[in-house]
């Protein structure tokens, strides 16, 4: 498998603020995203997750300034040198708050904005807008005003606006953090549907979602990747995650709690189905 994204020993510090020295936000991050993978990125607040996301389309450091060391290659292109606009066609970033990323007053114009910036012919833009809105299930919403949509719908428009640029890599930076439970479900549903055609980096605090969607999990702590592996293994380390300020899926926590109290590793289930079966068996045993 080929790496679409290759980050090698990346260090980054934002420009120093008055009264505060420059601090490394990323401290030697290395990672690869292989074609077709869904990778979950977890980390406590301030761990450097959003900074890492912005480093993938070159906004960090090209627009933010500051000090940088190491390398970020997007499909072989150096993200420090190529224009952000060029990288944006390859890496699409969706931000946490859909409100602040809206630039237009209709859904259609919002989704068309990116392709327009690429100077695509009108027929191509039209096609992409239709396709992208269809992909997030909002085909009927073209002439609506984004401000009047529900939280989940807003975030789906934001995703469509990025999809319309046809990036192969999607970076979703806490896309569900400010949504109500149903909005979260809607957005996760969309992410699930995008999976077959995209390489996805899903940054989130929602370990439940990561456990269900991700092929691989990375945990960032104080600018360093401290855990990496398949979700099953990473979420099994309940105590370590807790020390890092993260919450494993509740079902895993339950298994951990039972094992701890019993003093033996009696249970190893990771979803509701497995838990029902295992606990049912234990109860009749």
């Amino acid at each position, binding site marked *: 498998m080929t790496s679409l994204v290759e980050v090698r020993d990346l260090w980054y510090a934002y420009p120093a*603020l008055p*009264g*505060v020295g420059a601090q490394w936000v990323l401290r030697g991050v290395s990672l690869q995203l292989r074609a077709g993978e869904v990778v979950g990125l977890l*980390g*406590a*607040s*301030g761990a450097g997750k959003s900074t890492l996301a912005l480093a993938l389309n070159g906004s960090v450091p090209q627009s933010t300034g500051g000090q940088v060391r190491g390398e970020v290659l997007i499909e072989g292109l150096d993200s420090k040198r190529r224009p952000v606009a060029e990288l944006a066609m390859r890496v699409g970033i969706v931000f*946490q708050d859909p409100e602040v990323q809206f630039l237009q007053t209709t859904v259609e114009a919002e989704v068309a904005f990116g392709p327009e910036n690429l100077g695509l012919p009108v027929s191509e833009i039209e096609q992409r807008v239709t396709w992208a809105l269809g992909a997030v299930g909002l085909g009927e919403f073209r002439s609506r005003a984004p401000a009047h949509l*529900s*939280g989940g719908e807003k975030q789906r428009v934001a995703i469509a606006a990025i999809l319309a640029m046809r990036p192969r890599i999607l970076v979703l930076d*806490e896309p569900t*953090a*400010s*949504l*109500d*439970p*149903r*909005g*979260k*479900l809607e957005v996760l549903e969309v992410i699930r549907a995008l999976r077959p055609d995209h390489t996805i980096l899903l940054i989130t*605090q929602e370990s*439940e979602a990561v456990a269900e969607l991700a092929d691989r999990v990375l945990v960032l702590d104080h600018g360093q990747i401290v855990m990496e592996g398949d979700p099953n293994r990473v979420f099994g380390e309940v105590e370590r995650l*807790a020390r*890092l*300020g*993260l*919450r494993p*899926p*509740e*079902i895993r*926590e*339950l298994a951990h*709690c*039972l094992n701890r*109290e*019993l003093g033996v590793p009696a249970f190893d289930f990771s979803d*509701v189905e497995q*838990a*029902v079966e295992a*606990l*049912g068996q*234990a*109860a009749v*045993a």
Partner: protein
Amino acid sequence: MILAPRLEAIDLWFAYEAERPALRGADLVVEPGEFLALVGQNGSGKSTLAKHLNGLLRPVGGRVRLNGEDISGVATGQLARQVGYVFQNPDHQLFSPSVEQELGLGPRYFGLPAAEVEERVQRGLERFGLRSIAQRGPGTLSFGLRRIVSIAAVATLQPPVFILDEPTTGLDWGSASHLMDHFAELHAQGHSVILITHDMRLVARYASRVVVLSEGRVVGRGSPQEVFRHRELLQAARLQPPRIVELVERLVISGMEIEGLTVEAACRSFLTRYRLKHG
């Protein structure tokens, strides 16, 4: 022990825009010293309702009573002594050049003597672990810290009632549970806490009562247990109970005697039964 006031909102109507009322006859009672969760989808009127409890918004119809007295004639600046409000976005509530001064702002607005202000500030810095950044400008801090400062700055007002508007959004679980444990402690001392949140795990763990809003009206109320069991209500308000509640329900259906809304409670409940079986 703090004696919190009884708050009562009766048939509240309110509209930011005449064409779209945000509250359509909402009723709410907050008993002294209760930990109440206010839930419902984005735009259901949670914040709008809560902002009536300390007079930030005044209803176009209906009344708000504090210990039985109508608050319509009482200035918000006065009500702030009774009801503290932590807003959703920390950046909308940080006004001072340093964290230390930020914590003292409210007590100074109250006109407290300098020594008292100083004491409250010092206690707040200690309590919320902000000592090492006391001289930093709040604007230069990370989102997580700005949030903590915004909460600490309301805590120094020592109001009997706290309204927390999505206080954990953008925080990791470690910081979030640390923060909520702090409010659980205040609740134990007699403070009322009104928690607006989408996080049903917080509701399950901390709230003693839940009020569900939808389209500007209260559509359900009860213990977290009762609300999580109420399928149609959850559907109507677009809510989802925590995964552990789902599991416990499945186990109960399969004939097990298990209960609990949190991992800890379910774990204890199961072990009691499991150990019984093994004699």
